[in-house]
């Protein structure tokens, strides 16, 4: 849908001006610049519109761990699979999640074996299935970053039926960014931060990076000109050595975020040490369901223990792709044995996975 102001967002002339200014600023900086985004939708915009090819050579845009499907640990998928094998259970989740390879099989393979695995558009659909099937345990496999968390929180707050529960695999973006900054030799000069995560949490959590770590940050929208303007705003900061968190996507993101959604999150969830697939355990990197809502926590409701889950299959380089260390075409499996039809690693599955997007929009 065309929102007000979209004529500028879609203006080719504006794109040309942005590119010209980006080049001028990079010349003034006189060194190579490496910027990271952490959002599958940003990678989609960058790849689909060929933005990397429009940018001068000295700017590198790398993908961070911006796909919640990709960073969901195999152990959590194994858990959903074990529950799905039980009689009288229905596993519900978002579409991308069911094809992700876990330690042995994926949820879609389990579905093919006859288990009741259903794709839902949102958690309200999962609650609806629970209401329609009172004799079954309906489990929502909840993945997603801060954008998605309040949706599940809202459903848990509004009295779902007792046969509904949630596998809570939610992850938090700021903790992952802090970890990435500390990775040796990654040397990120600026973050293009995810506009819809910021829509919920506001700008403050991102200010840590510009203030404490002196890494400039721009919260950006998802049109090509949004991303290019975000890059220009980062270059201006690098040039002036004045580091801030700037809201490029102010037509949607309020500096304080969505306070109603934030209250829902803090009412239902607490932050916890959380494993990220291919990255490791991150302090405050994820969420757990608070005791008050424990009756809807599948971890507490069902006795399931998963040992020895395999996050990264042999030969797979998803862990290097997700931390911006290599591009997908540098993985020896990419486009050979690992394809969207037969994904080996998680980044090739999701429509927001970096490898899947590369496969679609790049020829190498």
């Amino acid at each position, binding site marked *: *849908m065309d*929102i*007000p*102001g979209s*004529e*500028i*967002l879609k*203006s080719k*002339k*504006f794109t040309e*001006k*942005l590119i010209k*200014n980006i080049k*001028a*600023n990079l010349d003034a900086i006189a060194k190579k610049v490496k910027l990271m985004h952490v*959002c*599958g*939708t940003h990678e989609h915009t960058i790849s689909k519109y060929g933005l990397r090819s429009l940018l001068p050579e000295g700017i590198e845009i790398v993908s961070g761990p911006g*796909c*919640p*499907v990709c960073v969901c640990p195999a152990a959590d998928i194994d858990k959903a699979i074990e529950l799905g094998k039980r009689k009288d259970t229905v596993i519900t989740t*978002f579409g*991308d999640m069911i094809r992700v390879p876990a330690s042995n099989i994926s949820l879609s393979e389990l579905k093919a074996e006859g288990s009741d695995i259903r794709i839902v*558009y*949102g*958690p*309200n*659909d999962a609650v609806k299935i629970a209401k329609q099937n009172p004799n079954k345990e309906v489990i929502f496999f909840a*993945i*997603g*970053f801060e*954008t*998605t968390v*309040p*949706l599940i929180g*809202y459903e848990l707050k*509004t009295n779902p039926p007792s046969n509904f529960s949630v596998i809570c695999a939610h992850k938090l973006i700021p903790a992952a960014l802090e970890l990435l900054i500390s990775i040796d030799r990654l040397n990120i000069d600026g973050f293009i931060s*995810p506009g*819809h*995560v910021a*829509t*919920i949490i506001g700008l403050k959590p991102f200010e840590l990076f510009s203030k404490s770590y002196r890494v400039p940050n721009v919260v950006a929208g998802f049109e090509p000109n949004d991303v290019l*303007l975000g890059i*220009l*705003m980062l270059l*201006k900061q690098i040039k002036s050595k004045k580091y801030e968190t700037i809201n490029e996507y*102010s*037509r*949607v*993101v*309020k500096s304080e975020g*969505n306070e*109603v*959604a934030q209250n*829902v999150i803090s009412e239902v969830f607490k932050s916890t040490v959380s494993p990220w697939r291919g990255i490791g355990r991150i302090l405050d990197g994820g969420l757990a369901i608070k005791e008050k809502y424990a009756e809807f926590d599948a971890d507490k409701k069902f006795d399931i223990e998963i040992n020895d889950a395999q996050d990264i299959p042999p030969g797979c380089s998803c862990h290097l792709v997700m931390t911006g260390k290599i591009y997908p075409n540098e993985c020896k499996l990419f486009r050979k044995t690992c394809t969207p039809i037969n994904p080996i690693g998680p980044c090739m599955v*999701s429509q*927001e996975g970096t490898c899947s997007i590369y496969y679609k929009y790049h020829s190498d």
Partner: protein
Amino acid sequence: MCLAIPGKIIEINNDEHSAIIDFDGIQQKVIVALVPGAKVGKYAIVHAGYAIELMNEKEAREAIDQWDEMSEELGLDLNDVI
């Protein structure tokens, strides 16, 4: 996953905390409990069937105008790009 798209609110059902939102001619029921100011005529940013933020025409235009204010600093002239 964090994909969210804008649509225009054309009907509100306060009892159900839901709204009918028009996405370029496709109309869909959306939960608006997370955006208390939802009103017919406003735009909503919708993620997985839930509105996560609102904007009206004036706010959206003001946000784009802010780019114009920044244009001198950024070395851009927005007046001749449309």
